């Protein structure tokens, strides 16, 4: 019996953690969850983006400073009226199976994105193209009526409905990447599985154990220098604490820090943090009392001391009174309401509001620890600075989203992350035609300024337009109060070199070295 016991212990010991840590040339990251899809036409989420960015390239690519740089297009021309873009493709690009890049592959992919049957969520990215929105809505069915044309193998001509200065920026986003009709036809939905999927970026898909692990390897056909990494292994460890333990054991090289752990690693040499183009705001239902009165909205905005948020959340948040976030072109830190409790109380009095008799105001957020912390903090600030009681309610995420669309509460929290680094992506949100504007607020002057800015190619004039629009949004009308921008907090192992963080949480791994 004793021997059996000893043998059992020995067996247990012998199957301890094997050499799971990555060797030179292999990087191990945590994706967190399964990418819902690697079909770049259908993908919408961050995890899918992280993988697809390694596999594919578009006409343009963002550099580490988030400036669009030529990628598959070596140059482009814009017509005088700003409506026609002509992209000239590189001639040396091949897919991982050796098939050369052809302008038709863009036409196919973009038409597929817009086709109603594809039901792509991000089809609206290409709505600026002539006929695109009507095609997607099924009003026109002939793809030849779209402003997308291949002029030979290496020229792509795009005609827009109206000038749009940031159009090249859109072509950095995955839904605009080229696609292969032959593969999708041959494999159907399974075209994104290993062995089927062909790509033209720095890496190719090697293995995909769903819900567990995904392996990429360097693409020998990549049109630029072969990346220094041979392999990238992406695990799908959902629990941040577990990922942290695996990092400590050397199994993972890059992990996201769970909020509660950030403080412990602040002075750690492997700790990295970077504020994101991701705004956090509270919105008012401007159709309902008391927030149908602009003075009340301004009073609430002036009663918020934004410097308290980083202390409460401790995740490297950066307070911002401007809606165009810091780090985005045309950001202006001077714009927005500033903390001024006296002015806030005066505005409230001017609106004829007596905090004593005002019925409690309802604020709704989705159930998550950090949203709760923010909600409790602003509840305390409004009580302290205005004497107004806020009733907090939390909702499960999907219930919350449905409520915002059907009957928005008096006050609600929401966030917005940039899809591409242009202010239009943020400012468009609160135009009267935006489905994301839950405030009930509409302002023709604001709409016009945002539209003009999207067409303005001169940066100085564009700044003036955005400043004007932001003043209406944040100082005069105040349908929302921006609070802060969020940061990402990572641990990066010492053996990983050349890994640069950026404001859009994109992993650029094509130049990363693992020693």
């Amino acid at each position, binding site marked *: 019996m004793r021997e059996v016991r000893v043998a059992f212990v020995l067996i247990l010991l012998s*199957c301890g953690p094997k050499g799971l840590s990555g060797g030179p040339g292999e990087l191990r990251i945590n994706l967190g969850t399964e990418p819902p899809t690697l079909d770049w036409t259908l993908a919408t989420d961050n995890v899918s983006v992280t993988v697809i960015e390694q596999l594919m390239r578009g006409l343009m690519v963002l550099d580490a400073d988030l400036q669009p740089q030529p990628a598959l297009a070596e140059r482009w021309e814009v017509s005088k009226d700003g409506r026609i873009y002509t992209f000239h493709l590189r001639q040396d690009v091949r897919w991982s199976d050796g098939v050369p890049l052809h302008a038709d592959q863009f036409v196919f992919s973009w038409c597929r994105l817009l086709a109603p*049957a594809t039901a792509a*969520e991000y089809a609206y990215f290409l709505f600026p193209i002539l006929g695109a929105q009507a095609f*997607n*809505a099924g009003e026109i069915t002939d793809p030849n009526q779209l402003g997308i044309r291949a002029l030979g193998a290496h020229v792509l001509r795009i005609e827009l409905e109206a000038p749009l200065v940031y159009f090249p920026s859109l072509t950095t986003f995955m839904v605009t990447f080229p696609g292969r009709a032959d593969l999708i036809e041959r494999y159907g939905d399974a075209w994104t599985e290993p062995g089927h999927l062909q790509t033209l970026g720095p890496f190719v898909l090697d293995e995909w154990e769903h819900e567990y692990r995904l392996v990429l390897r360097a693409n020998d056909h990549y049109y630029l220098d072969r990346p220094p990494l041979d392999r990238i292994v992406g695990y799908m460890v959902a629990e941040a604490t577990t990922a942290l333990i695996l990092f400590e054991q050397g199994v993972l090289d890059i992990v996201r820090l769970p909020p509660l752990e950030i403080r412990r690693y602040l002075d750690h040499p492997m700790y990295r943090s970077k504020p994101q183009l991701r705004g956090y705001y509270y919105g008012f239902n401007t159709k309902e009392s008391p927030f149908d009165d602009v003075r009340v909205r301004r009073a609430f905005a002036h009663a918020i001391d934004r410097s308290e948020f980083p202390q409460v959340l401790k995740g490297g948040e950066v307070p911002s009174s401007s809606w165009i976030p810091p780090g985005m072109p045309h950001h202006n830190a001077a714009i927005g309401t500033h903390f001024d409790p006296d002015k806030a109380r005066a505005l409230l009095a001017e609106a004829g509001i007596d905090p004593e008799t005002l019925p409690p105001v309802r604020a709704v957020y989705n159930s998550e620890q950090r949203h709760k912390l923010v909600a409790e903090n602003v509840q305390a600030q409004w009580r302290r600075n205005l004497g107004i009681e806020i009733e907090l309610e939390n909702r499960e995420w999907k219930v919350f989203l449905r409520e915002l669309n059907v009957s928005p509460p008096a006050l609600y929290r929401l966030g917005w992350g940039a899809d591409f680094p242009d202010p239009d992506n943020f400012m468009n949100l609160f135009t009267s035609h935006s489905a994301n504007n839950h405030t009930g607020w509409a302002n023709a002057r604001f709409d016009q300024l945002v539209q003009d800015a999207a067409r303005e190619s001169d940066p100085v004039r564009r700044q003036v337009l955005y400043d004007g629009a932001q003043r209406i949004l944040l100082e005069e009308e105040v349908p929302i109060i921006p609070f802060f921008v969020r940061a990402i907090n990572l641990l990066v192992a010492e053996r990983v070199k050349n890994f640069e963080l950026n404001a859009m949480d994109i992993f650029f791994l094509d130049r990363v070295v693992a020693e």
Partner: protein
Amino acid sequence: MILFFFKRLLQGIPVLFMVATMTFVLLRFLPGGPFDREKTLPPEILRNIEARYHLDESVPEQFIRYLSGVLRGDFGPSYKYTGRDVSDILTDSFPISLQLGSLALMIASFGGVAIGLTAAVRHGSVLDRGLMLLSVAGMSVPSFVLGALLVLSFGLSLGWLPAALWEGPSYAVLPALTLAALPMAYIAQLTRSSVLEVMHLDYVRTARAKGLSERAVRWRHVLRNALLAVVTYLGPLVAVLLTGSFVVEQIFAIPGMGRFFVTAVTNRDYPLVLGATLVYACLIILANIVVDILYAFLDPRIRLDGAR
């Protein structure tokens, strides 16, 4: 007995139908839909998506479409994992939960019976009290606490076992223990109390009186009858353990199907919720049939209805 088995299997069909109907209806009552997003979709795009997944049809039409699919073995496409079918997702993840769950089931039943029997035999001793204290602890410590403690001690501090992931047999030890702790504790208590109860019955006294050894009395007469209670509990337990656990899979990063019982609901991935629920229901039905057959083996007084 084969006849009994098939008869019970047939009886399971209306049960599955009820489960599918109830789940389908309840899901539609849940506020918020699968395509409610932080970035609200323009109406024309929402219409295209609803058409693709037939969500623009009336609810009864959708239900009939779903049922006829299930009869053909097609659980439909997942709304969250675009391009993957629910059948594929469950075929990938169920075997992993099955492996982990079987191991946990073995630990829980053998361990639980052994502990319960030891405690009952040494009734009133320090060992008995110690074991019962342990089993109360096993029932009261939630698995996310136990899992974390096991990871920190055996995974991180001692480094004996892998802290997480799913790469080989050693990776199953800590999650299986976490998964098994509660049922093992419960089985130990169940075994102990029913052994104590049986030990004082007449037939045990008769067995002793006719001169059987204490060992034979315990194994052949006491334990066999005491196990009836445990077997009853094993039926639902099999379904619970074999379909995985959200918490354990989350802590140990195991790609099983337990997670879908939670994430599919939060994502409003209706087909995936239905698929996972039906797998669970099938297991419950099968396990209960096996339990009934086991009854007949353990207690000759029980006759299987329909068996000849």
